[in-house]
């Protein structure tokens, strides 16, 4: 069937909604949100990094752009979460476009370092922007009884969701599913094939008439926008935000590690990577030591790039091919 | 003083066989031309001799005057250089970000050549005065002709007994080609070097060669008896004219 994937996506969104209504313990939504956020980050990173071969070290900068767009909007207009996410996406997308323009001549490691530099400059600027809390950060108290299209969304008794954690979880889940759909669409489109050609050899791609410049700009914009959307609810989720946590390098690292572990060639790679690594991190920080979080990322990453260079996806494909023979 | 013997050599890349049963002899002090157009296996043979590619069958040996035989077939590139074999690779393969002098000095990396570094450097500069003028210039910024001089100079820095020259004429203007080939010819005479030179410019190569081989599709299609045979044999003309 032509729209099987789309139908599955819709069913998943409905499934997420049902979960929020059935499961009572807020805590699951609390950690589920992080895993879903990482799924968006990994998927977004993979569009540029996995398909196009451009390694973005500055993912945290895009995420924080979304988060701070949201903070500015809350202070300025007191708008709801959905509006914050849309605005966060737009601004981070614009930042992606600017990054693309600024780094057009850069490839490989140079591009990676330029993105890192950009994130650090942004962090410094935000730390001086007192309107959003400056270096000290700012507390965000989510709106009481928020409404969307006339419906009361979050309220213990009368709302669609009993609390903010459920609402945030549902929103992030929806964004994750849409992101994955977009990534899959790109993968099978002219854009995806063009990016793949760029990854193999930019010169060759150019010679074959691939509009490398345009494709790169589209990819940096889409990837940046996705990260911005994922970052926008961060302030509401943490109820506090400061530059140090919003621009944390851990976001950048996870955004790279997850696709690498899952596999960078297909949309499913970042999803699997985020599910595995995200869950492992959340579980380990609960029951073991929080530092072990990072140890797990480190060890898993090293082991994977050594024994399963194409990630879990590649590993499966290989073993499937092996058994066919 | 050495003589190079290659017997029944087979070699290739992975599953692709490039050289098939190649037998060549480069006598002491002679300049031997390995002729053939592009893609016939000249460079592969050169790489085999230098140990960059391992042959799948056959042998490569250096025979010394006193009867010692050095087997190069399974030797590493380092051991081959230590045995006194230097190569001027196809495409020159200079270190573009190093200066002319540094490129030359790297040529003397071989232990036996380090002691005579100064003498050899002087020799290279006398042979190619242009290099002396551009001593501190980056190799990558020089013209094609100068780069070829540097490539030859660099190979000489290791005090080789056997010099392999792969396509010295590629990318050079005709006048420079003839100058370069003449220089290589002089080298053989003045330093008593044994030279194996791969070339597709038949005319120029046979000018200085003491004997020659024509390689076609990885096989030796013709082996001349001597210099006169190389210049006059009809086979050469047939191949040269592009049969």
């Amino acid at each position, binding site marked *: 069937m032509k729209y099987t994937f789309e139908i599955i996506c819709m069913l998943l969104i409905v499934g997420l909604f049902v979960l929020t209504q059935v499961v009572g313990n807020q805590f699951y939504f609390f950690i589920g949100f992080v895993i879903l956020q990482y799924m968006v980050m990994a998927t977004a990173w993979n569009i540029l990094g996995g398909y196009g*071969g451009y390694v973005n070290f500055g993912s945290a900068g895009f995420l924080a752009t979304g988060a701070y767009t949201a903070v500015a909007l809350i202070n300025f207009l007191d708008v709801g979460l959905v509006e914050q996410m849309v605005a966060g996406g737009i601004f981070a997308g614009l930042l992606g476009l600017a990054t693309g323009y*600024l*780094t057009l*001549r*850069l*490839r*490989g*490691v*140079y591009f*990676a*370092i*330029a993105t*890192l*530099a*950009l994130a*650090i*400059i942004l*962090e*410094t600027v935000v730390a*001086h922007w007192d309107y959003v809390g400056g270096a000290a950060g700012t507390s965000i108290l989510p709106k009481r009884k928020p409404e969307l299209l006339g419906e009361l969304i979050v309220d213990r008794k009368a709302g669609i969701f009993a609390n903010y954690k459920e609402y945030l979880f549902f929103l992030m889940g929806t964004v994750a599913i849409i992101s994955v759909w977009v990534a899959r669409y790109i993968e099978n489109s002219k854009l995806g094939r063009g990016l793949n050609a760029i990854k193999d050899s930019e010169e060759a791609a150019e010679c074959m008439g691939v509009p490398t410049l345009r494709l790169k700009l589209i990819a940096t914009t889409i990837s940046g926008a996705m990260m911005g959307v994922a970052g926008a609810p961060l302030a509401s989720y943490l109820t506090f935000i400061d530059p140090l946590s919003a621009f944390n390098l851990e976001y950048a*690292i996870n955004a*790279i*590690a997850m696709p*690498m572990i899952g596999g*960078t060639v297909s949309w499913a790679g970042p999803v699997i990577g985020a599910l595995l690594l995200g869950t492992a991190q959340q579980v380990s920080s609960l029951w073991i030591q929080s*530092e*072990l979080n*990072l*140890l797990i*990322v*480190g060890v898993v*990453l*090293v082991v*994977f*790039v*050594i024994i399963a260079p194409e990630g879990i996806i590649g590993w499966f494909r290989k073993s499937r091919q092996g058994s066919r023979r | 003083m050495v003589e190079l013997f290659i017997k029944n050599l087979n070699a290739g890349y992975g599953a692709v066989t490039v050289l098939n049963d190649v037998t060549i002899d480069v006598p002491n002090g002679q300049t031997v031309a390995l002729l053939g157009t592009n893609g016939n296996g000249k460079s592969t043979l050169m790489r085999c001799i*230098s*140990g*960059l590619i391992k042959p799948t069958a056959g042998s490569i040996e250096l025979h010394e005057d006193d009867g010692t035989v050095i087997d190069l077939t399974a030797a*590493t*590139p*380092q051991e*081959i*250089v230590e045995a006194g074999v*230097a190569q001027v690779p196809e495409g020159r*393969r*200079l*270190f*573009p*970000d*190093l200066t002319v002098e*540094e490129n030359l*000095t*790297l040529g*003397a*990396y*071989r232990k036996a050549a380090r002691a005579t570094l100064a003498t050899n450097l002087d020799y290279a500069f006398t042979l190619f005065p242009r290099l002396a003028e551009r001593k501190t210039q*980056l190799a990558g910024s020089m013209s094609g002709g100068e780069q070829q001089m540097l490539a030859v100079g*660099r*190979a000489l820095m290791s005090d080789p007994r056997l010099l392999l020259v792969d396509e010295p004429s590629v990318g050079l203007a005709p006048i420079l080609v003839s100058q370069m080939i003449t220089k290589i010819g002089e080298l053989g005479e003045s330093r008593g070097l044994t030279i194996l030179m791969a070339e597709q410019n038949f005319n120029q190569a046979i000018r200085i060669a003491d004997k020659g081989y024509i390689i076609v599709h990885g096989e030796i299609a013709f082996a001349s008896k001597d210099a006169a045979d190389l210049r006059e044999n009809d086979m050469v003309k047939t191949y040269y004219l592009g049969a």
Partner: protein
Amino acid sequence: MAIFIDLLLNALVIGVLLGGFYAALSIGLSITFGLLDVVNIAHPTMLVLGAFIAFLLNSTWGIDPVLAGIISTPFFFVLGWLIYQVYYNVFEKSGAESLRGLAFFFGLLFIIEVGLIIQFGVDHRLVEAPYIGQSWNIVIGEEIDVAIPFRLLVAFVVAAIATLAIHAYLTKTFFGRAVRAVAQDMMALRLMGVDPIRVKRIAFAMGVATAGIGGALMIIVLPIEPSLGRLYLGNVFAIVVLGGLGSISGTLLAAVIIGIAESIVATFFGPSWAPAVSFGILLAVLAFRPEGLFGKTAGAH
């Protein structure tokens, strides 16, 4: 006016000293990344490891931190040797070094960092040495005097010696020249009778070995904790790229430029703008001159 001159003079002096310190942090990366093309993003964390070893030697036996750095250098040489062995066999040999190699070093970064947390905890650590907390005051004129903190001076002098020694080694010895040539053409190097893998292995080990002494300087200059390496990741890469890949003297110069820029900005505009300025310089250089300030070939290839 006197105050302005006083501040400017001190900012310049501190900037140069700071630059020397930054050079010590970057020089190893200038070898491994600049000359060998190995993107060792774990380098700053290795420096922190070096700093902790200096701390351990200093707090247990009272060994001077600089001496401790020299003592730990062979250990880092071996560590670098082993890491390259894995890196070469798993990634470089199969030509898969770019993305996977990067991920490999990313993972290494976290393994070292968490190892340090498990071993030492997350507290800040300092070392004791007679020169820490002392300074050399030079009175130049009325209301103008220059104070040179000894810890920065020690860092600068050691860094300068190490950088010059490495520079001399790379330009004056046969092996050093081979190191500089190895990323340019491995095959040609083979034809010179050099084993390029051995060259890379030793050179990489040398680059990592600088983490011993560099880490010691780090803990002399500032308190350290396990995740400090991540903070310096941007700085050291910025300096190496700014200086131009493959240029050791360029790295030193770039480090001094960043040091002076940071200290002038810190003095006259406020310290919190400093990173934006140094990374602004980097970004501008990357956008308009990708080969870096002193690089020879284009970096954008």
